[in-house]
């Protein structure tokens, strides 16, 4: 099969005797026929699942989308569809947008950590020739914020500035030099206030809390959010067989994306705002602009430019976006604002500096009886995503292990520093590191291999976590087994010479937040995609999914191409403008491929069904026996009986014109009913396991990571090239956090290293060899089985490196990053404590298996079979966290155990023993103190 012309019967061009075509007489291939490739390519059976007659292995069983596979592009490594624009320098990023008559906007920033603005006099600014518009906080008193529950930002300071670099005012001038000069002409009277830098101090009462939440304010503290979560039977932890306890300090890190923030605002002749911005979440910016500018959303068009990296750092609506719009409105001309790198650090939204305490216990059969986590996170000056981060720091540690009990206290405090926010692996990274290192330590005290400890305590596929998350596909076991084998773990762990080490770490992450922030999921879908096919056969896909470099546009194009069996060049994704794209929540929580591609598949099926119906009319064969393959539709048993894609299309269009279809995705109802139950809920979860190898120079403390075996369960790799890119990129980013990156606030509270020389992102020299291993567990609800691969792969690298450093030098380090001075100090202390002559005399740790080892191995062997049956849906019985401890999954756990608790507030008797962050529960809200409105 294979030599069917796309346009049977099309006349050939008129040719001269010398073989050349006659000018004006050549027949161009009809549009949509495939142009230079007129013959149909044979079906690529290697990429059609065995469950529907192809040759692609499906070890995890069949999938509802198997029937929609055509072997066209899904599963094949292809370059991202926008890569040509990028490698030729033609992609238009924020600062590339140049509108005629543009003005340059500059922002005046606070020189104070915390101060009240008593007055601003702009008269000297306005008098400067070349200044066209000036704006201050008074022009935009409406508050905004990425989460509707915590709107605490203004376009510019209205009453107070909250950190050095906070926005005070802005100007638009004819050129940059004038704008810069204008900034020195503001006359401002300040009243300096007592700043808070240490998050521990943030838990205490303060004369002037950084924000005031009225009756919900917690006493007079700077606590923005406190969380308490307790599940399971806490009596299990009273007499542990083994335990570990680690207190961590993790410094804040920044996304370090290449492109600084930039925005262009322009009020068009009809008075509509056109705003160009490299946003991950254009829709929230859209909403915030509407609120701040007092303009209805339909009078604003948010145009997402190409995004030069986001990683969570471009997902808040930003004050400078408001500034540009305000200035442009005043000036009546377009205004462009581009940040210097320092301003990028001042707007921040990076990972929270954190103090994390993790205690864990195990019983005498090596089951994990409890996790006890306390996380105090430093939010900086604004709430941003912090409400969610406060939950994630705890609840995202409730898997992949089966737990006897879980206890979490968290608090996020405001401090006078640039605001922390969401960053790749949002909220999960730091706790995950502490948990995974805790497991390593506990395994050591049990004399067992830490990988076997993990393998014997995994939740199976299709189960429920202790906090009520619904786990579907689960490739954790395979990931662990593959990195164990790939790294030759059993020959290396605890056997390498001093200075060389190997370590393990796992990860667990959401594949799309189950709860849309802005609306009720019962009413509206999470994602919507529109498809339109006109007479030329080209397919235009409208989606609001923001491609931030992660390849969401490619993923959407791929799934549409797959369903319609069209070359990917025929799919055109339009996602830049809010005017034309259906509302999408944006690129965060690793939701885009899962939700958008699902919506796109549904829309594509809508188009396909119209084409098949037309083909049915033409051929007389029912769609059930028709095959779609490379621009042709034909009868399953006789490929000669068929029509070209274009013929079917034109037939389908006969009465209607362009074909259109829409698809939407909504996650199923899930989760518990306790306060905070929605945090961390996702329609699917990703799992990963990494093994890292390090060299530690014991005389200098310099750590270099040499090799990483990185296995990630992404459900199904729609594009293995993109998945590998995400894995390798995640390794790089996570290595930065664990080894060198930190936002340094000096003794005066100033950010000391707001530049790319002193904020030390690893260079190519620091990159290890990364062996990316893709695990495919075929998620039942994921598009073609896919789950996320953008954030989860970052989690395991941190603990894997920290554990490897321990393996190399026998010193537990819990201050991140592990810069050489930190490692050296640890070594020095160890040498002194053990009375050694010098660092060379350190004996690296060794492992002699204890009696528990064989118990764990036996259990994990048993569980391997359990998991296989559950993964393939051969065993569909219920499984909830607790079965390992002997509970009946079909009866409520509370009925079976006396001490079973599912609590979101501490009991009075618990108050005395809460961890650091937990102390926020000692304070009362104003409304319970009889205070404030």
């Amino acid at each position, binding site marked *: 099969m294979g030599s069917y012309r796309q346009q049977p019967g099309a006349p050939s061009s008129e040719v001269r005797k010398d073989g050349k075509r006659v000018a004006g007489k050549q027949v161009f291939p009809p549009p949509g026929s495939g142009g230079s490739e007129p013959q149909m390519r044979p079906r690529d059976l290697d990429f059609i699942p065995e469950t529907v007659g192809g040759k692609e292995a499906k070890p995890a069983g069949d999938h509802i989308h198997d029937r929609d596979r055509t072997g066209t592009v899904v599963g094949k490594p292809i370059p991202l569809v926008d890569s040509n624009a990028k490698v030729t320098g033609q992609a238009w990023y924020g600062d590339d947008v140049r509108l005629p008559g543009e003005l340059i906007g500059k922002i005046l*920033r*606070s*020189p*104070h950590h915390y101060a009240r603005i008593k007055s601003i006099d702009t008269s000297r600014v306005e008098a400067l020739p070349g200044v066209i518009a000036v704006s201050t906080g008074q022009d935009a008193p409406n508050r905004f914020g990425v989460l509707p529950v915590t709107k605490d930002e203004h376009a510019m300071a209205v009453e107070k500035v909250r950190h*050095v*670099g906070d926005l005070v005012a802005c100007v638009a001038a004819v050129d*940059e*030099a004038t704008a*810069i000069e204008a900034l020195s002409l503001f006359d401002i009277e300040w009243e300096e206030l007592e700043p808070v830098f240490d998050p521990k101090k943030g838990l205490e009462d303060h004369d002037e809390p950084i924000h005031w939440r009225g009756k919900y304010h917690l006493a007079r503290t700077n606590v923005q959010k406190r969380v308490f979560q307790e599940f399971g039977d806490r009596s299990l932890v009273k007499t542990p067989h083994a335990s570990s306890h680690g207190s961590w300090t993790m410094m804040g890190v920044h996304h370090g994306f290449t492109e600084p923030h930039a925005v262009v605002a322009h009020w068009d002749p009809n008075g509509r705002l056109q705003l160009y911005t490299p946003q991950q979440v254009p829709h929230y910016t859209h909403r915030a602009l509407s609120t701040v500018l007092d303009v209805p959303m339909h009078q604003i068009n948010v145009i997402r430019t190409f995004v030069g990296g986001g990683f969570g750092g471009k997902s808040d609506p930003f004050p400078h976006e408001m500034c540009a719009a305000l200035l442009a409105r005043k000036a009546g001309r377009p205004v462009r604002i581009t940040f*210097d790198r*320092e301003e990028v650090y001042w707007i921040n939204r990076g990972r929270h500096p954190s103090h994390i305490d993790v205690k864990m216990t195990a019983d005498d059969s090596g089951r994990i009886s409890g996790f006890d986590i306390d996380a105090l996170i430093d939010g900086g000056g604004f709430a941003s995503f912090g409400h969610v981060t406060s939950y994630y720091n705890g609840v995202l540690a409730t898997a992949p292990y089966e737990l006897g009990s879980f206890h979490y206290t968290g608090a996020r405090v405001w401090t006078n520093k640039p605001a922390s926010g969401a960053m790749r692996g949002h909220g999960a990274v730091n706790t995950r590191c502490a948990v995974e290192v805790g497991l390593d330590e506990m395994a050591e005290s049990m004399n067992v291999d830490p990988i076997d400890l993990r393998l014997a305590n995994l939740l199976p596929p299709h189960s429920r976590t202790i906090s009520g998350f619904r786990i579907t596909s689960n490739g954790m076991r395979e990931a662990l087994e593959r990195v164990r084998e790939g790294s030759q773990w059993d020959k290396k762990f605890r056997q390498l010479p001093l200075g060389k080490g190997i370590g393990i770490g796992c990860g667990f992450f959401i594949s799309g937040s189950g709860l849309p922030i802005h609306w009720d999921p019962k009413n509206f879908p999470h994602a919507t995609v529109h498809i339109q096919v006109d007479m030329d056969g080209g397919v235009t896909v409208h989606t609001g999914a923001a491609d931030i470099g992660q390849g969401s546009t490619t993923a959407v194009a791929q799934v549409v191409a797959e369903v319609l069996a069209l070359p990917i060049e025929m799919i055109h994704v339009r996602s830049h403008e809010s005017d034309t794209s259906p509302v999408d929540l944006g690129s965060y929580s690793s939701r885009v491929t899962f939700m958008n591609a699902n919506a796109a598949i549904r829309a594509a099926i809508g188009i396909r069904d119209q084409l098949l119906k037309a083909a049915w009319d033409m051929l007389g064969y029912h769609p059930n026996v028709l095959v779609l393959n490379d621009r042709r539709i034909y009868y399953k048993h006789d490929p000669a009986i068929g029509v070209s894609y274009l013929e079917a299309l034109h037939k389908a269009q006969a009465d209607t014109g362009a074909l259109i279809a829409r698809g939407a995705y909504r996650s199923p109802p899930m989760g518990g009913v306790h306060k905070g139950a929605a945090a961390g809920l996702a329609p699917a979860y990703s799992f990963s396991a990494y093994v890292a190898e390090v060299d530690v120079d014991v*005389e*200098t*403390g310099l750590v270099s990571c040499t090799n990483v075996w990185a296995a990630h369960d992404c459900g199904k790799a729609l594009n293995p090239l993109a998945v590998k890119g995400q894995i390798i990129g995640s390794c790089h980013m996570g290595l930065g956090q664990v080894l*060198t990156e930190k936002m340094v606030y*000096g003794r*005066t509270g*100033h950010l*000391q*290293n*707001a530049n790319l*020389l*002193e904020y*030390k992102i*690893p*260079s*190519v*020299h*620091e990159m290890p060899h990364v062996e990316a291993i893709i695990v495919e567990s075929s998620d039942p609800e994921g598009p073609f089985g896919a789950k996320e691969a953008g954030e989860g792969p970052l989690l395991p690298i941190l603990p894997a490196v920290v554990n490897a450093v321990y393996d190399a030098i026998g010193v537990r380090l819990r201050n991140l990053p592990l*810069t*050489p*001075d930190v490692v*050296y*100090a640890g070594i*020095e202390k160890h040498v002194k404590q053990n009375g050694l002559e010098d660092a060379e005399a350190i004996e690296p740790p060794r492992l002699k298996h204890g009696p528990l080892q064989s118990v764990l191995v036996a259990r994990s062997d048993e569980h391997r079979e359990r998991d296989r049956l559950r993964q393939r849906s051969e065993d569909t019985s219920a499984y909830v966290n607790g079965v390992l401890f002997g509970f009946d999954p079909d009866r409520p756990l509370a009925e079976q155990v006396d001490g079973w608790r599912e609590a979101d507030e501490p009991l009075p008797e618990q108050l005395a023993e809460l961890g650091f962050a937990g102390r926020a529960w000692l304070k009362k809200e104003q409304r319970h103190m009889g205070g404030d409105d």
Partner: protein
Amino acid sequence: MLMPPFELHHPSTVDEAVELAASLMAKNEAFDWVAGGTDVLPNYKWRINPKPHVISLAGIEEAHALSSRELGCMVPLSSLTTENDVHPLLVQAASKVASSLIRKSATVGGNLCLDTRCFWYNQSEDWRRSIDWCHKADCGTGADCRVIPNQNTLCVATYQGDLAPNFMVLDASVVLIGPEGERTMPLVDFYELDGMKKNVLKTGEFLLKVVLPEEAAQRKGCYQKLRVRDSWDFPEAGVAASWVPGNASSLMVASTALESIPRLHTEQVEEHLTAGDLDPLALAKIVQKSVKPVNNTALPPRYRRAMVKTLTKRALLDILE
């Protein structure tokens, strides 16, 4: 970031350059020399002491001279290669400066005349305003030093050039030229405290070239650089050592990135050698004791000081091999 405006001058001979400097001085106009610009121009963009005039040394042919014994100030670091007959120690040291891209512009002269660095100082104007400036760039406020406060006279910014200690242990001299004429001196004498003064250059004077003695070719050397990343990063500590193999009395050790000027550790080496045989660890400890880094670079001073011992030991072991 916007470059502040300045007038750029392009003299094509040494005389022209000196005359230009003299005429600007006569008019009381401030100026800076620029070579590769990889240090001075980023500082300008941060508005750290920008001047209205900048004189480029790039057009001066003499400044590009390169042989085994003479290195003109304009020679780019990427030309310090064995193919160009450059001393292996200098090749090694140059290859560790900044990044391969920067080394194409960065020059020998600029490296030796590098401005001292400090995290209270290498910051934007907005940033420095937020700490109310500091002594080295006080913008007329009389601000104090932020590293060692309450003294108001001294800047302790750190010299973080890589080449200087290496030239020192090769016993190099520098040729300076200015309106008052030409002078040659050992590189050791070129540097002068404090972090603002940096060196003996008088206004209008520039460093024309570096000259190595004939004996340098016999020296075996090693440079040990401490940095967090193997690219870009300035040294957090650096130790160079060299000797004529077999001749202990020829041993020289120099350090950089620890104080406001690089140092040749003549006294420490002498002290050690008069006490007995050459013992790398013992000498390393003496060198370590003699340096006093302060807290104004990426890594804490206590650690940098501790590392001086390791770096010195490693450099010595390497050359003694």
